[in-house]
């Protein structure tokens, strides 16, 4: 018979819409509105998993997100498989495949259960006390074994095809939790017209009202009040209602993070996202997240079929499912009586055991007696029967002094236990509020606030329904700045409980296993052992026993653990204190936090106007910061070396064309432009004539090189500054910082023009001939247009700032044209250059050519610890300037001391050997390790033009070692080199001035 434990009536499920999914391959039938947990229980399935350490059989404990044991792997199709899903949170739908975890070979027969037999050895922290001998066994034997047994589900193995969304949102009032308190808070705030967001983790708003089927509000059934309230909220434009949305993180300044499960409950979501991250900046926050029921701590309290009492009530009333036919409720408080009443009303066999004496009980006692339920007051629970399903609860009377009378076994197939309630203060605590302990409620409540928030309802220890509704309304109104208040009439709630830590027992507490943290298998005796060993801080107990460190983060275990520790130390609960509440409230998918920043949208891919052309030419690209830069242009059959050799030769002999658009460009404009340049660069700028260029060097205040680049004076009050590709944002920020905070009086403005201008570098003896027919308004003759000059005019009819500069040592032009015209101009030059053998070249060739000339590259020759003199550029420093950024630091002792690493050239004895960049340099390769290292190779290439390998390096006092032999590390050992001048080609620089 399908769904043997489905009650014939009741529940909010849709009995006309059956759903089928599989659990470990077996088909399970439920109805639309079921959770996987309720559907499993409807079919009498309780055994769903194996515990983390002892691999004990485990069932469903809770209906809610605090479920510690019923964790399933869920398969929603290829690439959509994820571990550790709480059965209570996953909504049942057609086609879902669920699997139990952490067992081998099967759920029923798991050899891991041998750990259960060895449990006397496997106490808390046992692994710190052993596995130390022999030393190598830890890595090779013990740890692999521990790792294999640990973990729960399997990590996903393939990339996730689902889409994840992100939404920054703003509202005046954010209400967390749509139970009675949250609903009235949202109502009150919404009526003021302010923007309200109401979020609830459940598929349906309503909270406890969804299963408090007998309650009445303002004279009508709670369900009616609920639908009327939801109708009003839905009708209001200023309200956003978010079901299936968990508020998981409360960050600075009311920045609250919510995770919305958008389509996990839908069979085929189309293009809609799986989940969405809401980043809400709220004016005010109302925390109405309710509270968590505490399990009872007694021997073998972890058997499948033992649930929280309120969860039994939820499965009965909300899902129409009987978790068992003979239910024993064990409690120390009143709320379990309501569950017992509903179970009785559903025709189930019910017994209730209450630790409290009759005198300590309230009106709930008489109500349950009147319903004909057997009640054993003044009784404790000392154990349970059954292995893969509970078959009995062992109880015993207990006297004032805690001594137990004769044991009695109550046969049952389900237990509902309740050890009291703990307000959910996680988000309040994350908001940095201070908690205050309430003796009467035996709980920590929100105390002093640090941010603009307030709590209402069970989240602050208020359990009576009328009071909860009133408190919610007041909180919502106040949050919206309204002083309207409203009270409600409602049927009374059965409240009040007697705090209990470990239940009194007649057994030896150091022998029996009474579970406190179900998922991490932490027992009461583990916690007592920790305290005995000197772990007195609650943080120490948590880390030593791992209680509260599982995926439920202690929602059902923290207070019991804290109570046991306080008892051992003879302190009050506040005397011991709580561990820190940290985001997330419940686990959040990585994908949700990542949102759309995946694949091509992980990072912007910056390309230049010439990118497509280069791709068409078969270029390979390299990443430089966020840019893609053409690396080299291999022809058929060429590897990088062959291609670069060809490209280098073409530039030296004919003409090469190179895309330098990624260079940073800043327009420095204003009457004080030259003065500003004087202060920020090492060079002099006041006398630079209009139309001339200078190679600028910029330092940080600590004297080390920050960036370099060619600067042209466009006008007396305007400089065109170029920076390195990687340095562009850094240099602009560096300049703005000094301008605004140190020299606000200077009249000068900075504008980034990096992407206004594309830069076509044309380098080689034939460069001038190629562009001559294309350029108008500029006399290209050497006399009129010398090296390091800039002229404005047009090329192919497009306005240009034509620089005569060279990073290759050849006659060179850098043709700056507005970006959207760049491709057309490039193609025109490409055409004109065909008869001169024009060849495109990439960054690799650029590196080789500039190294042949001994030009440095920021970030390769420099690494943030290199001064101008180190790289032989001290000559660029303007002697006359009294100050510039970094100058004072150049006078510091260690900067002027000898032994600094200086730029030199290195030539290998074997001209064919190309050294590794980053290779270390020593004078004596025979010295013992650790060897004295003199420096490292910064740049190293095969130089076609020198037909040998060349390298640049930074070597201690290198300039004094010209002609001397040194030794450089290679993968095999060392290679001998000779120190030379770093300029390998055309040292007199005739070609550049052609």
């Amino acid at each position, binding site marked *: 018979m399908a769904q043997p434990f489905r009650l014939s009536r009741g529940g909010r499920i849709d009995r006309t819409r059956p759903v089928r999914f599989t659990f470990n391959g077996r088909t399970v039938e439920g109805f639309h509105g079921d959770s996987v947990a309720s559907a499993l229980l409807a079919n009498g399935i309780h055994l769903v998993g194996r515990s983390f350490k002892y691999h004990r059989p485990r069932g469903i404990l809770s209906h809610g997100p605090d479920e510690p044991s019923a964790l399933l792997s869920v398969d929603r199709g290829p690439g959509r498989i994820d571990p550790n899903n709480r059965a209570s949170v996953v909504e049942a739908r057609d086609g879902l495949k669920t699997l139990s975890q952490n067992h081998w070979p099967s759920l029923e027969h798991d050899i891991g259960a041998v750990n259960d037999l060895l449990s006397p*050895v496997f106490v808390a922290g046992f692994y*710190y*006390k*052993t596995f130390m001998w022999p030393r190598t066994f*830890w*890595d090779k034997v013990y*740890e692999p074994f521990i*790792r*294999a047994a*640990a973990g*729960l*589900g399997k*990590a996903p193995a*393939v*990339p*996730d095809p*689902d889409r994840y969304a992100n939404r920054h949102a703003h509202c005046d009032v954010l209400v967390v939790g749509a139970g009675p308190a949250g609903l009235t808070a949202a109502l009150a705030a919404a009526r003021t017209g302010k923007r309200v967001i109401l979020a609830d983790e459940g598929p349906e708003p309503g909270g406890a009202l969804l299963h408090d089927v007998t309650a009445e509000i303002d004279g009508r059934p709670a369900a009616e009040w609920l639908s009327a309230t939801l109708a009003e909220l839905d009708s209001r434009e200023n309200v956003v209602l978010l079901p299936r949305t968990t508020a998981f*993180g409360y*960050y600075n300044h009311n*920045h609250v993070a919510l995770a919305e499960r958008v389509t996990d409950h839908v069979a085929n979501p189309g293009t809609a996202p799986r989940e969405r*991250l809401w*980043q809400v900046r709220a004016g005010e926050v109302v925390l109405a997240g309710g509270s968590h029921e505490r399990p009872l701590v007694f021997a073998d309290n972890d058997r499948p079929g033992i649930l929280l009492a309120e969860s039994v009530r939820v499965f009965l009333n909300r899902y129409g499912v009987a978790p068992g036919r003979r239910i024993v409720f064990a409690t120390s408080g009143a709320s379990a009586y309501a569950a017992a009443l509903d179970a009785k009303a559903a025709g189930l066999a019910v017994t209730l055991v209450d630790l409290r004496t009759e005198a300590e009980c309230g009106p709930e006692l008489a109500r349950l007696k009147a319903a004909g339920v057997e009640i054993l007051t003044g009784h404790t629970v000392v154990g349970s029967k059954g292995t893969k399903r509970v078959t009995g609860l062992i109880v015993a009377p207990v006297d004032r002094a805690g001594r137990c009378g004769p044991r009695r076994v109550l046969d049952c197939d389900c237990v509902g236990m309740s050890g009291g309630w703990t307000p959910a203060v996680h988000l309040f605590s994350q908001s*940095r509020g201070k908690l205050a302990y309430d003796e009467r409620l035996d709980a920590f409540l929100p105390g002093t606030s640090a941010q603009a928030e307030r709590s209402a309802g069970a989240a602050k220890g208020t359990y009576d329904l009328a009071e909860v509704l009133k408190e919610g309304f007041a909180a919502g109104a106040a949050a919206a700045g309204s002083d309207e208040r409203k009270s409600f009439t409602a049927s009374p709630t059965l409240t009040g409980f007697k705090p209990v830590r470990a239940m009194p027992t007649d057994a030896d507490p*150091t022998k029996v296993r009474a579970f406190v943290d179900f998922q991490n298998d932490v027992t009461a005796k583990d916690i007592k052992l920790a305290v*005995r060993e*000197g*772990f007195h801080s609650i943080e*120490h107990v948590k*880390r*030593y026993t791992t209680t509260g460190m599982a*995926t439920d983060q202690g929602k059902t275990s923290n207070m019991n653990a804290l109570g046991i520790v306080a008892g051992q130390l003879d302190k009050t609960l506040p005397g011991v204190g709580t561990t*820190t509440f940290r*985001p997330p409230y419940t*686990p*959040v*998918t*990585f*994908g949700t*936090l*990542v949102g759309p920043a995946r694949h091509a949208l992980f990072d912007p891919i910056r390309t230049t106007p010439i990118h497509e052309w280069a791709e068409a030419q078969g270029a390979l690209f390299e990443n*430089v910061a966020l840019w893609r830069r053409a690396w080299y242009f291999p022809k058929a059959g060429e590897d990088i070396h062959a291609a670069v050799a060809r490209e280098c030769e073409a530039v030296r002999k004919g003409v090469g064309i190179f895309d330098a658009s990624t260079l940073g460009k800043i327009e420095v404009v204003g009457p004080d432009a030259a003065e500003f340049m004087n202060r920020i660069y090492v060079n002099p700028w006041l006398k630079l004539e209009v139309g001339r260029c200078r190679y600028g060097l910029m330092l940080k205040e*600590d004297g080390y090189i920050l960036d370099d680049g060619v600067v042209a004076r466009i006008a007396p009050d305007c400089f065109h500054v170029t920076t390195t590709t*990687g340095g562009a944002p850094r240099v602009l920020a560096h300049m703005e910082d000094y301008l605004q905070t140190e020299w606000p009086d200077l009249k000068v403005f900075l504008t980034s023009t990096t992407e206004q201008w594309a830069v076509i570098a044309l380098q080689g003896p034939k460069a001038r001939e190629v562009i001559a027919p294309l350029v108008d308004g500029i006399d290209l003759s050497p006399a009129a247009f010398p090296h390091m000059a800039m002229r404005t005019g047009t090329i192919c009819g497009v306005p240009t700032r034509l620089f005569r500069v060279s990073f290759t040592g050849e006659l060179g032009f850098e043709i700056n044209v507005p970006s959207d015209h760049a491709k057309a101009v490039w193609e025109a030059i490409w055409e004109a250059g065909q008869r001169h053998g024009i060849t495109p070249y990439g960054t690799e060739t650029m590196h080789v050519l500039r190294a042949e000339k001994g030009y440095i590259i*920021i*970030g390769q020759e*420099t690494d*943030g*610890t290199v001064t101008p003199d180190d790289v032989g550029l001290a000559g660029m420093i303007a002697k006359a300037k009294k100050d510039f950024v970094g100058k004072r630091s150049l006078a*510091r*002792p*260690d900067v002027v001391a000898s032994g600094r690493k200086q730029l030199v050239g290195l030539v290998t004895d074997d001209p064919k050997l190309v050294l*590794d*960049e*980053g*290779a*270390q340099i020593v004078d004596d390769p025979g010295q013992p*390790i*650790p*060897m004295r290292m003199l420096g*490292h190779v910064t740049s190293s290439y095969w130089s076609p033009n020198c037909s040998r390998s060349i390298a640049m390096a930074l070597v201690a006092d290198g300039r004094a070692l010209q002609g001397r032999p040194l030794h450089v590390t290679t993968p095999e050992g060392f290679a001998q080199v000779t120190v030379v001048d770093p300029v390998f080609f055309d040292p007199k620089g005739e070609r550049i001035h052609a």
Partner: protein
Amino acid sequence: MRRFSLSSLLSESLKGHRGWGRQWRDPQPKPAYDVVIVGGGGHGLATAYYLATVHGITNVAVLEKGWIGGGNTGRNTTIIRSNYLYDESAALYEHALKLWEGLSQELNYNVMFSQRGVLMLAHNLHDVQSFKRHVYANRLNGIDNEWLTKEECKEFCPPIDISGSLRYPVLGGALQRRAGTARHDAVAWGYARGADARGVDIIQNCEVKGIRRDASGAAIGVETTRGYIGAGRIGVVAAGHTSTVMAMADVRMPLESYPLQALVSEPVKPVFPCVVMSNAVHAYISQSDKGELVIGAGTDQYTSYSQQGGLHITTHTLDAICEVFPQFTRMRMLRSWGGIVDVTPDRSPIIGTTPVANLFVNCGWGTGGFKATPGSGHVFAHTLATGSPHAINAPFTLDRFRTGRLIDEAAAAAVAH
């Protein structure tokens, strides 16, 4: 102190584990000690341990304002490596790594040091160059660090995607096989137990409020929330709080304290065999023995003592992790937290004397302090015992910032041409 071993564990198992006794005492502070260590984290406790075991100085107190191991020791991502570039750093971190290799046996406390390897991925030509520079420098400093092709990276750490389809494709990596991880809490507890057993007083819930100095200006004791405690020498090992403690002796430091966040995923079966660090996307990841992916990245951008940071740091960190390991996109974040890391201008520590006589400081470890714990404790114990630095920590002076003799490990790695 009962000795830990399989036999003692089995015998106690039969007697309900009643015989273990306390791992460290909870003594009342004595009026004075030869050495007072301010800060009960891994470095402070290690200092006390080596003072006792190496230098025979046991009239020592470790003052901790909260619970031992509660600061950065309990908040880091437990990565241990010594493949640093400069000779001074290489010597310091290798000294620590050698001590790690025998630490469980030395302390008779399983700190679960596992040499599963740390692999630094190169995503661009600059990374390749920078890592090779490290590999060669490490070779000449006697530190194991080898350059791997991307195929070898994939072989060593199968979850890595070398298909080249990533935004920043993996070009290769630098692997230190002797590097790995350890159980951070156990390091603090192991050192505490060892020091306590040799007579060192570990005094928790004891916050230092002032440093008392004599007429000559020499430090002679500390004011605490549990009364005044005299000291022959004071060693400040307070990490993120160093500036505030040193200010009590009018010593201003080149330090800024930032929140450093980290997070763990839900526990899963073994899937990630080693530690992977990636500079270009700036994140690092390993899997703990309990099965959680342990993930960290950079600091927040402003100074803070709140041990909390912004959500955008977490999302940027996970962007990076899911870019390099797309298969982890469906994993769930279980918990995120923050520490307070004290950062120096050159990202290297300060271990040695201060301008105030009898006052010594060990700080500035920034985001990389856990890996140095044994080495830091050992050399600082030498400094406190002898009054002058050990050869290994001699370069890490406070004065280096005046002379410009910086040891800037971060600069070498970060600059992209």
